């Protein structure tokens, strides 16, 4: 499988420029800090079950930096932190994992959709968003995230086909980490290269090494610019491997050969990128350490902000469902005997 990934596009730091390389590294590190902190918070019981993205920092950071601030992102449960790269405080996505409604309220103003849980259902949303922006003659593209497993879903198919037919300026970024929970890619599809599925839609399909931040950046940028120029959608397969468990409730030992992931650990993007920066003289060990410290600092006392976040009563949550709340959800109604507040 490593063989497979190694066929995918790679870039050297020189093709991307020092400044950008450094920015990418900083973004990756801040994603890593968020993720490690979230795993700790889950163990501490501050948040609920949490899907770590350890190892996917390169492709995620690159996808955000390669786009304009107005471009739309449609994350799944595995990209909840990308919104923080657009300036959203980390407690917002973490509040969602804490089961707090505040975890969603403000993401849309960063042009990031609320996290999408049902697999592949965010693909049609991204197509519609891209298409809708085009209809308003905005130079805005949309990017939808997904995984290898999501390509088996009919929603993936309908979204890709529709996007190609209406030439929606959308990018489908499928991170092929070889696993859907315990299901290996070989049980998911007979096609080893997910990018080949683009042919079924007359769409451009490309493969990139998901651990290579520079290659991911250039690949997403090219796809986004193609979309912006009206040349239609692109399917990007970011080839990699899920270095961690599916989530904090998952036990890879149940289904993955011991050491399977180890093989891939050499690909771990943060150290790899740090080395590239140092080898290229773009950064030295001190700067790398400083970047990591700064990122750690940014999230250090997020736990307090999570615990202190005031929880709205169910009564007021009920007022957020409709523009004009029907009697079925009115505070008076909810206070009737045996009803929600009426107990």
């Amino acid at each position, binding site marked *: 499988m490593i063989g497979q990934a190694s066929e995918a596009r790679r870039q050297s730091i020189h093709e991307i420029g020092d400044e950008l390389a450094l920015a990418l590294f900083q973004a990756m590190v801040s994603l890593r800090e968020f993720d490690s902190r979230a795993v700790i918070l889950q163990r501490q019981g501050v948040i609920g079950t949490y899907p770590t993205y350890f190892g996917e920092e390169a492709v995620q950071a690159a996808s955000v930096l390669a786009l304009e601030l107005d471009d*739309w992102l449609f994350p799944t449960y595995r990209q909840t932190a990308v919104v923080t790269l657009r300036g959203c405080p980390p407690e917002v996505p973490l509040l969602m994992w804490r089961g707090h409604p505040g975890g969603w309220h403000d993401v*849309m103003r960063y042009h990031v959709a609320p996290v999408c849980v049902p697999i592949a259902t965010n693909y049609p*949303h991204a197509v519609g*968003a891209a298409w809708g922006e085009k209809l*308003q003659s905005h130079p*805005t593209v949309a990017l939808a995230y997904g995984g290898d497993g999501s390509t088996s879903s009919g929603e993936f198919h309908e979204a890709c086909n529709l996007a190609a*037919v209406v030439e929606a300026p959308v990018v489908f970024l499928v991170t092929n980490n070889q696993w859907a929970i315990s299901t290996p890619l070989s049980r998911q599809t007979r096609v080893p290269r997910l990018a080949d599925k683009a042919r079924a839609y007359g769409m451009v399909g490309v493969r990139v090494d998901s651990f290579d931040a520079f290659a991911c950046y250039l690949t997403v940028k090219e796809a986004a610019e193609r979309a912006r120029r009206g040349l239609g959608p692109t399917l990007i397969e970011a080839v990699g491997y899920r270095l961690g468990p599916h989530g904090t409730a998952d036990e890879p030992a149940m289904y993955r050969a011991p050491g399977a992931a180890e093989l891939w650990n050499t690909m771990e993007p943060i150290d790899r990128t740090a080395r590239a920066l140092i080898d290229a003289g773009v950064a030295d060990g001190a700067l790398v350490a400083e970047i990591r410290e700064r990122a750690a600092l940014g999230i250090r006392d997020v736990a307090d902000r999570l615990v202190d976040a005031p929880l709205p009563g169910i009564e007021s949550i009920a007022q957020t469902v409709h523009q004009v709340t029907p009697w079925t959800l009115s505070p008076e109604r909810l206070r009737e005997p045996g009803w929600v507040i009426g107990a």
Partner: protein
Amino acid sequence: MLLNMVEAIGQGLAQILEADPHSLILGEDIGVNGGVFRATAGLQQRFGEARVVDTPLAEAGFVGAAIGMSMVGMHPIVEIQFDAFVYPALQQLISHAGRYRWRTGGSYGLPLVVRLPYGGGTKAPELHSDSPETLFSHVPGLRVVVPSDPLNAGELLIAAAGCGDPVIYMEPKRMYRRGRLEVPDFFAACAIDEGVVARDGTDVALVGYGSMLEVCLAAAEELAAERVSALVVDLRSIYPLDRDLLLRVARQTGRVVVVQEAPRHCGIAAEIAALLQEEAADLMLAPILRVTGMDMPFPLFQSEDEALPSVARVVTAARASFTY
């Protein structure tokens, strides 16, 4: 002008496309072909292919795309070709459409209208005669409305497009060409969640919506011949229900018969019966009775008249409500 229901819907759609530059229509065969029921006849010619869009055959995909469009400021109106063909889009409607305002703490609405021709009585093949309104009315975050004549079809459509939230707009297709009615050149939005008394009366209230309204009105006629004064309610909104109106007519008549074409188990009639017996027990002179579709697949059309609530069945139920 004089329009039948399907013409009124077309007129309402044209009015929306005219007035709201962010509105557009998506669906199968709605362009040059004007839709299999001709509801969108002439609209693509008039407003262009960008605003009246023929989609691929993929209901989940284009309903999902409509949701995405709505997130970025468009006001999509989706046509589902027939009753049962909304089922592939149920995941998008249940897991997403009704949830965005709530997800965003009330700050971002998701304006979306899904037009759904529904119901039996048109001698159509299997799965072209379903009445799935119960499913939508149970899905949080969605409003569900059902017009009963050309005028309220137009007014409800304008209301649905303007209410800022997703609305399932159910079209009783057997009423599409039930005769023309004088309607204004421009429809004004009516209340999105209010029913009306379609015929006043004192002894028993017949509550219906969509194609069942004419059945209720005909039953009221028959009952009048028996000196029974039947009031008829046109619900129009099935989620939320017009609770005040229902309580008022219960108080006024003390006897209520609810009529629905959908299967009985957990239908709208059950909700109304449960609501009235909870909140108006003291006013009821008889149990709330239900005349409904059967808890079985809608039969092939040679048998459909046997399965559909009939005037005779409504009259029988109304009479029965005097035997308690």
